[in-house]
């Protein structure tokens, strides 16, 4: 086994480290904790955060890449497979390898297309049984009972896990707050915890039950069917999570330095600095976004094609294109936040304490660092969480236009693009489209609800009105 660190992997883990550092920093400062405590009080935001956490865990697992050693390579000079796998692939194992011939419906036992099947020497044209989906069953009559059994078993397992987690949480929380176990449970039941315990518990239980049921079903069936080349749709949808998360987060990582530096500089220094920065962002804003992205993606494509020696695997190629897409989307989308920060800095620089600092001869960088930036930080944070969902949705549209991620990459945009024309078939092949839209919807909805909570807690204007 040889670990592979793709560019986006490195950046994703750098981002995780940065977030962890930020959390530690915030925990040490009480005034920074306060708005987050406000977020934690909102049931919807907390439920959404839990769902997001599941997505993030899957995405992170999928970011630990490696290449398997070829079985027949000599031990002193090992050779590695060209296929890049991830910890997530290793975890779900059979989901990746159990390929059918072509389409099959969710939980089906037979293929979507007819084939000639040999019945005791007689060739009969029929829907053949699937190689893996429901292969453990003798006859199709058993399917219903088997499905019910698996759903019930999965539900019970999920519920048990959820109850166990809740029990552990209760024990820990009760110890922290020096309550007895019973007192804590009463507070939990009546909603007197100070944080939305019941919503969190319900969401947790739902997630656990759903995961357990899916795991139970997936060991015997293709839960969401298979796609055109027979690959499991559930597997593709889960792999696409990483792509969506990477686009949503790394793009903001590119946006932030540009928006913060240029926005604050324009508002704080005014004069010619302001003129130049305003000129740059008006120019960027006037170009229709899709065209700018298209042009830049084409450049990257040409670069990759003319320098094939730089990329040893298909995954590395697709990864560079994903990174390029993030950078390009970041470069085209910093203008909105920059404008906001400019306006806010313009206001802040005239405040008495900033003028006083300047009168004392404090340097510009220090004034910006100590007085301006902390006072616009809530705007930055709100922009990060609000932009995330928009970026995830934009990926699908860009992939449709042909300037999105690499066509070989797992992404919801590519899934939609590939399945769009299959709706014209009879019977309809709906599961691939449905799965892509459902996963995308869940992620975006959770992100939106969480963003709302963050905005309500951080934006002083919204907070005052409620």
């Amino acid at each position, binding site marked *: 086994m040889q670990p592979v660190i793709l560019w986006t992997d490195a950046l994703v883990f750098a981002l995780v480290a940065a977030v962890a550092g930020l959390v530690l920093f915030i925990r040490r400062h009480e005034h920074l904790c306060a708005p987050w405590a406000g977020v934690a009080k909102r049931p919807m935001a907390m439920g959404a955060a839990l769902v997001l956490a599941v997505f993030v865990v899957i995405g992170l697992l999928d970011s630990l890449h490696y290449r398997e050693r070829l079985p027949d390579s000599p031990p002193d000079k090992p050779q590695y497979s060209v296929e890049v796998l991830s910890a997530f692939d290793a975890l779900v194992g059979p989901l990746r390898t159990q390929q059918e011939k072509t389409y099959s419906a969710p939980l089906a036992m037979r293929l979507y297309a007819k084939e000639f099947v040999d019945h005791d020497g007689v060739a009969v044209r029929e829907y053949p049984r699937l190689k893996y989906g429901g292969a453990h069953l003798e006859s199709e009559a058993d399917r219903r009972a088997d499905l019910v059994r698996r759903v019930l078993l999965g539900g019970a397992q999920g519920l048990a896990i959820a109850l166990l987690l809740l029990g552990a949480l209760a024990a820990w929380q009760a110890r922290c707050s020096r309550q007895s176990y019973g007192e804590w449970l009463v507070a939990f039941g009546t909603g007197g915890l100070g944080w939305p315990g019941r919503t969190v518990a319900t969401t947790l239980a739902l997630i656990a039950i759903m995961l357990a049921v899916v795991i139970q079903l997936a060991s015997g069936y293709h839960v969401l069917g298979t796609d055109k080349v027979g690959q499991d749709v559930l597997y593709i949808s889960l792999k696409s999570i990483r792509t969506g998360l990477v686009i949503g987060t790394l793009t903001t990582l590119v946006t932030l330095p540009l928006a913060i530096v240029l926005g604050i500089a324009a508002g704080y220094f005014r004069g010619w600095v302001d003129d130049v920065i305003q000129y740059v962002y*008006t120019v960027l804003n006037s170009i229709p976004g899709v065209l700018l992205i298209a042009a830049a993606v084409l450049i990257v494509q040409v670069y990759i094609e003319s320098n094939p020696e730089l990329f040893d695997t298909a995954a590395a190629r697709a990864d560079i294109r994903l990174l390029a897409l993030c950078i390009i989307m970041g470069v085209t989308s910093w203008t909105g936040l920059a404008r906001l920060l400019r306006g806010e800095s313009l206001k802040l620089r005239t405040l008495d304490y900033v003028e006083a600092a300047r009168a004392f001869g404090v340097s510009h960088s220090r004034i910006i660092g100590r007085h301006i930036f902390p006072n616009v930080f809530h705007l930055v944070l709100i922009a990060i969480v609000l932009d995330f969902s928009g970026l995830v949705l934009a990926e699908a549209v860009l992939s449709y236009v042909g300037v999105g991620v690499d066509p070989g990459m797992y992404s919801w945009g590519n899934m939609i693009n590939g399945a769009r024309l299959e709706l014209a078939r009879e019977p309809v092949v709906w599961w691939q489209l449905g799965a892509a839209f459902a996963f995308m919807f869940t992620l975006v909805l959770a992100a939106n609800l969480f963003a709302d909570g963050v905005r309500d807690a951080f934006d002083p204007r919204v907070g005052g009105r409620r």
Partner: protein
Amino acid sequence: MFAYLLRRILYAIPILIGVNLLTFTLFFVVNTPDDMARLQLGAKHVTPEAIERWKVEHGYDKPLLLNREMQGSAQFTDTIFFKHSAAMFAFEFGKGDDGRDIGNEIATRMGPSLAIALPVFVIGLLVNVSFALLMVFFRATYLDLWGVVLCVVLMSISGLFYIIAGQYFIAKLWNLLPISGFADGIDAFKFVLLPVLVGVVSGIGSGARWYRTIFLEEIGKDYVRTARAKGLSEVRVLFRHVLKNGLIPILTGAVVVLPLLFMGSLITESFFGIPGLGSYTIDAIQAQDFSVVRAMVFLGAVLYIIGLILTDLSYAWADPRVRLQ
């Protein structure tokens, strides 16, 4: 006022030059004139002479930005950039790679684009404002709360889903409207209906929620309290006072996109087979037709700048306190 307009229009020139320079650089990093010639000539006819001939015919035989062989200002004017981009300021876009006149193409395709984009804009605005007013009327009740949740749900759905679902259910399953296509004159109506419906529905979520916040901000102001103190009914307060004042930021905010309606929508047009500017642009991106893309970028930039100027004018018109100078 006149001086202000003149200054804004003059300020547009450096921006347009910047836009041109940027797209020019981007595209010529991708493919050199040689590549373009090779792509256009096809695999069969590629000889160095043929490439040279194509470059001369299409005006790509000059240096990109700076011609060192010339003297004086000709150093800048006798280049590909100047020959191809300066003409754009006179709205002469030249020919696309398929040999058709781009200006002509834009003129004929603007109609269908507008036939979709304008109704979506107008009806969308009406629907969103009514929906937002409804939520504001029932503010701080469960109706309002669930309205907002519904908005968040609606805006979390991918735009592609609205189009695909609309086409599948309304056109294919229930056979109510044609799936895609376009016709001239009065026949266009039935083709326009579905895209407009999809466009309006997909915009409700974010639109209604945004307008709701605007109205809520308005409703907390002193004049509303005065109106209530006078004994006006809630409906009257809402429609006579809040709606009127809330419409100012809504309308002035919408003005900036008004000129851009001419450009149409990329995705909607290509899904519904509308022969508008949006599908023209998508085709050009996919065929890597630089002249068309450059023309569309220029057109988009001009329309955007017009939108910005119109926004300033509409502010001054709607709010007497704003003076343009």
